[in-house]
């Protein structure tokens, strides 16, 4: 039990230890770990061993790098949002343009890595869960390229919200299975994918889309996404000669944030700020902000902050953005919060929609609604910084997929 056992890193030098996490059992402080049914322990162990092996295999890593550059289109630019920065009247805002990746979001960094690993492991069938559909599309995309069978689980509520991505997945040859249980959103899609995995453990590889799940997923997904932060750090130094004052990224499960933050963890002066979905407002209870308003528990294979009842039942979340509509969060974020190395704020649906419009009109970049939460918070804090300070926002995905949601929100039929 961890509720009384949360220790705090007492000074900055302790933060360097964070780079060595998780420990061999997948723990980030009291968080993470491997909480899975017995049938899955063998395939999880097989995955852990394969990942340990291949992450140290230079040929495998070179294969990923080649795909990053030739298939994904990396490196993604670090873009100075000059006009918006000027309007905000404070820090210089830079966007790390993950929206320019193939398929339009950071999700592909992870699916390229995991699919290549699946291939090395001899798995022929890929399953995935998806919320907004970005991870599903990224998975279907790499499966099409590698000739792997692909089944994507998606809550029926999310299918309604994200029809375009559903059709994209089907065009790519994936089977999209509608999940009708529970709240019919991302968490239920994850449950259903777990059920598929437990039934088809021999030939199936489960590509989890975020830095959550049983060990080694949180570490593995972070490692594949850390390309975001490595590039951003080098680009910042190259373009401005210095490190940013702050990094801002949206957090659902938290993979784009973790990928951006991780290579900066030892840079103690760089603030790490995650932004959760406050939905209608934290005070209304209708939100998806476990780090702001949840408490520790165990779900989907790991211990982390959850949105739950007093009795430990997981409660339904609310966000205008399907990709942030998840009651848990990656365990490494939980630990970064408790240690004080990262801060976690929240932005409401309305704030995110405002930022969506503002950035679209000011910079000619249409961000995803998930991303818009990070932008909303950057907008809020930018005036507090000097004009020569730099804030990097993870522009985690593009907003084309969300135009129907935005239109519906404004009573416009398209």
């Amino acid at each position, binding site marked *: 039990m961890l509720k009384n056992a949360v220790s705090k890193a007492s000074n900055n030098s302790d933060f360097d230890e964070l780079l060595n996490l998780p420990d061999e059992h997948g723990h980030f402080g009291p968080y993470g770990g491997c*909480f899975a049914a017995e049938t899955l322990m063998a395939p999880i162990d097989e995955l852990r061993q394969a990942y340990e092996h291949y992450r140290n295999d230079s040929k495998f890593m070179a294969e990923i790098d080649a795909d990053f550059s030739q298939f994904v289109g990396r490196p993604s630019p670090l873009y100075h949002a000059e006009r918006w920065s000027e309007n905000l009247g404070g820090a210089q805002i830079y966007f790390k343009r993950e929206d320019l990746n193939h398929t339009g979001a950071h999700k592909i960094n992870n699916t390229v890595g995991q699919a290549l690993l699946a291939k090395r492991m001899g798995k022929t069938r890929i399953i995935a869960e998806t919320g907004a559909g970005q991870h599903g599309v990224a998975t279907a995309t790499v499966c099409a390229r590698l000739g792997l069978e692909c089944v994507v689980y998606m809550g029926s509520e999310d299918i309604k919200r994200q029809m375009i991505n559903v059709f994209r997945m089907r065009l790519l040859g994936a089977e999209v299975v509608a999940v009708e249980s529970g709240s019919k959103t991302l968490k239920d899609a994850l449950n259903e994918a777990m059920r598929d995995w437990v039934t088809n453990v021999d030939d199936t590889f489960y590509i989890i889309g975020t830095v959550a799940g049983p060990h080694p997923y949180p570490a593995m997904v972070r490692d594949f996404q850390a390309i975001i932060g490595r590039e951003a750090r080098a680009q910042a130094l190259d373009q401005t000669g210095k490190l940013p004052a702050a990094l801002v990224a949206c957090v659902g499960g938290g993979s784009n944030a973790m990928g951006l933050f991780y290579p900066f963890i030892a840079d103690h002066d760089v603030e790490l700020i995650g932004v959760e979905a406050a939905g209608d407002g934290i005070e209304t209870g209708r939100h998806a902000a476990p780090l702001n308003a949840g408490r520790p528990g165990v779900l989907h294979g790991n211990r982390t902050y959850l949105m739950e009842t007093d009795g430990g039942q997981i409660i339904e979340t609310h966000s205008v953005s399907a990709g942030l509509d998840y009651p848990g969060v990656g365990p490494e974020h939980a630990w970064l919060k408790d240690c004080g190395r990262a801060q976690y704020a929240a932005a409401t649906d309305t704030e995110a929609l405002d930022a969506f419009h503002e950035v679209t009109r000011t910079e000619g970049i249409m961000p995803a609604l998930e991303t818009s939460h990070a932008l909303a918070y950057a907008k809020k804090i930018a005036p507090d910084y000097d004009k020569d300070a730099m804030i990097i926002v993870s522009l985690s995905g593009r907003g084309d997929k969300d135009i129907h949601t935005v239109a519906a929100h404004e009573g416009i039929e398209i």
Partner: protein
Amino acid sequence: MSRIAACFLGLAEAGRQALIPFVTAGDPEPGVTVELMHAMVGAGADIIELGVPFSDPMADGPVIQRASERALAHNVTLHDVIDMVKRFRQSNAQTPVVLMGYLNPVEAMGYEAFADSAAKAGVDGVLTVDLPPEEGAELVSTLKERNIDTIFLLAPTSNAERIKRIDAMASGFIYYVSLKGVTGASNLDIEAVSAKLAEIRSISRLPLGVGFGVKAPTDAANLASIADAVIVGSTLVKIVEENAAEPAKIPGMIGEALSAFRRAMENAV
């Protein structure tokens, strides 16, 4: 000796196998569960497995998942489930009761508080589906201090090393998951189960129960010749579901169904 150990000892002396029915507590409504438990004992249940409803039952198939949803619609909590055991114990002192569920409600209550109130109510065993031995040391010892057994699952994918590790932490009995899948899935492959049970027996001396995929009395009969206990879950929960509109009928219907399993097991041995 725990009530579960004593139960298996008695059965072994009589040359019989345990019949263990599973129902979800509070399904289809909380008022029916205690009476249902007594009815199951009357129909030949040796141990009762009581499911603790959870919002995200990842290891369960649709039948038991819906049972959780029905119970949660009545806001059935872990406290309520423990209270049902307490009321069952008022007129049954000998039938062991095992709580089966997921870790998060236990985390929310706190291990010490959970173990205290479970022990006080007369709970004999706890099976937490998503708590493998790697993460389970603290809960196991907390329960052990109160003489509550921790039941662990073994699966077709468990190798010798895992069987040893689990045997070292488990007490009461071991629950062998007969197939790769969720509860209520597929059909039994008796030969495969038999081979795996032999492997487990070469390592563990704990009684072995088999569950997942036990659908018909003939399955129970087949298992009775190779296992120490037969666990019947989804088949019974389906009956609860079919009669959800008339909860008063459920104890009788379940009792009848369970009797058929009991008879098949007696005839088989």
